[in-house]
């Protein structure tokens, strides 16, 4: 494992530099406003979840960060760069990896082609050996058509392909969605391993149990706003507080 991350304790993380700072972010799909002034930040090496009901604006938040949603106001600062106003490909090149909810595996590409499609943008990405060690299934099925994989394997592929690129900030949209519990557990372990390797991760998650298993902090989103931010310890101590937001 990466020594850089091993020594890092939760306290150290709390004082780590802010990697992504979102300030008063609003975003629109065509004419309808979906985000209404979101503010939160993500620290270097942290694993942060966005939790909230369906339609709260979690996915839109990720899509705004990577610029798929182009109409946005406010500020998204990644290290020293302002992302609002930049095109998606420019944002990606700064070192932000995005794994969409629908996984977006390409059916006209083989598993291998899917995996190696994203170009290496900067140093520090996983090597091919590391990738295949983390995702042995993908090696076995490298020649298959991308969409012939099982749901879990497609999810692994969608995560794996952004690890080679040298992106240090990963935006993962509901990787546990629609998967069997045993696969969810496996993906949880992979995400924890990525965190241990020093990746900074923003995870959109509806599955509270999954979120608790992996995260440092939780940002609760409701109607396009941040209504609460709590550490994992706070979440454990007061599950009722979050469950009331989620309406479960």
């Amino acid at each position: 494992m990466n020594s850089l991350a091993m020594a890092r304790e939760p306290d150290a993380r709390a004082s780590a530099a802010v990697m992504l700072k979102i300030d008063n972010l609003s975003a629109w799909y065509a004419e309808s406003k979906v985000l209404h002034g979101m503010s939160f930040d993500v620290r270097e090496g942290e694993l942060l979840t966005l939790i909230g009901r369906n339609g709260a604006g979690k996915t839109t938040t990720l899509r705004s960060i990577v610029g798929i949603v182009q109409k946005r106001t406010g500020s998204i600062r990644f290290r020293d760069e302002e992302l609002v106003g930049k095109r998606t490909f420019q944002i990606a090149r700064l070192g932000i990896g995005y794994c969409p909810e629908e996984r977006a595996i390409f059916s006209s590409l083989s598993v291998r082609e899917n995996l190696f499609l994203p170009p290496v943008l900067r140093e520090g990405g996983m090597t091919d050996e590391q990738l295949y060690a983390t995702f042995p299934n993908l090696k076995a099925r490298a020649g298959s058509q991308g969409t012939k994989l099982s749901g879990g394997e497609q999810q692994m592929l969608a995560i794996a392909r952004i690890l080679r690129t040298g992106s240090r900030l990963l935006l993962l949209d509901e990787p546990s969605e629609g998967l069997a519990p045993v696969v969810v557990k496996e993906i949880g372990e992979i995400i924890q391993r990525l965190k241990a390797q020093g990746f900074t991760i923003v995870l959109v998650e509806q599955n509270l149990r999954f979120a608790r298993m992996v995260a440092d902090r939780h940002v609760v989103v409701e109607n396009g706003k941040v209504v609460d931010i709590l550490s994992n310890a706070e979440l454990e101590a007061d599950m009722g507080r979050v469950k009331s937001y989620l309406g479960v």
Partner: protein
Amino acid sequence: MFEGISTQLLFGQVLLGLINGSFYAMLSMGLAIIFGLMSVVNFTHGAQYMLGAFIAWLLLNYLGIGYWPSLVLAPVLVALTGMVLERLLLRPLQGLDHLYGLLATYAVALIVEGLVRYKYGSTGLPYDNPMPGGINLGFMFLPYYRLWVVVFSLVTCIGTWILIEHTKLGAYLRAANEKPQIVETFGINVPKMMTLTYGFGVGLAGLSGVLAAPIYQVSPSMGSSLMIVVFAVVVIGGMGSIVGAAITGYMLGLVEGLTKVFYPEAASVVIFMFMIISLYLRPAGIFADKESV
């Protein structure tokens, strides 16, 4: 059964069918590549084919540049003008209904054809055959140039197929055909890729034009008359299916040639009958994958 038909006629028409098929294949391949990535039905394609032939003619008659250099120069020039067109006209239309791109490219086709007709008239301009002579195969006479056209077009189609199916560049193209936004999140400049792809597609049209110049006469309408058939080919093969477009092109060229032998009256409609049948049986095209239906 086929008594009244001489082998001479049969093979002559098969060759002619292959020649026509070569042009259908190259043109519809370019159309399919452009449509796949940009969802633009490029109605300028015929004019760009004509432009390829015309540039070759201009290069020869004004600058003394012959066929072989033109085979490279003219397509490059057509590709460059195409890329300018894409940036100025097509990019602003991205994201709008397909109809806008279709109408815009159709308008450009009319303008280009009109300008050429205005300056050089509508009668065909001759272009000398760079490979005169031929070989007597016993059952037929095979002109070298026609052989060259068939071989060159096959090489071009197979080369394009390899480029798209078996290279990294092609993988980007295929991926961007499916999910352009996701490809962009990998740091790929998809708009630039569209410009280059459009340039490549219309470059193929320009290349076909140069190839055609010595066979057909160079005239402003040489593209538009061919394009009607080429669009039928693309519809039968499946819009956006690149391999399908090429195979269908050759196949229908042959079908057309053979129809001329066995039932000449139907030769000009046989492709459209195929189109109707294929639309009826497989509306998305013979080679379309199920997902795009």
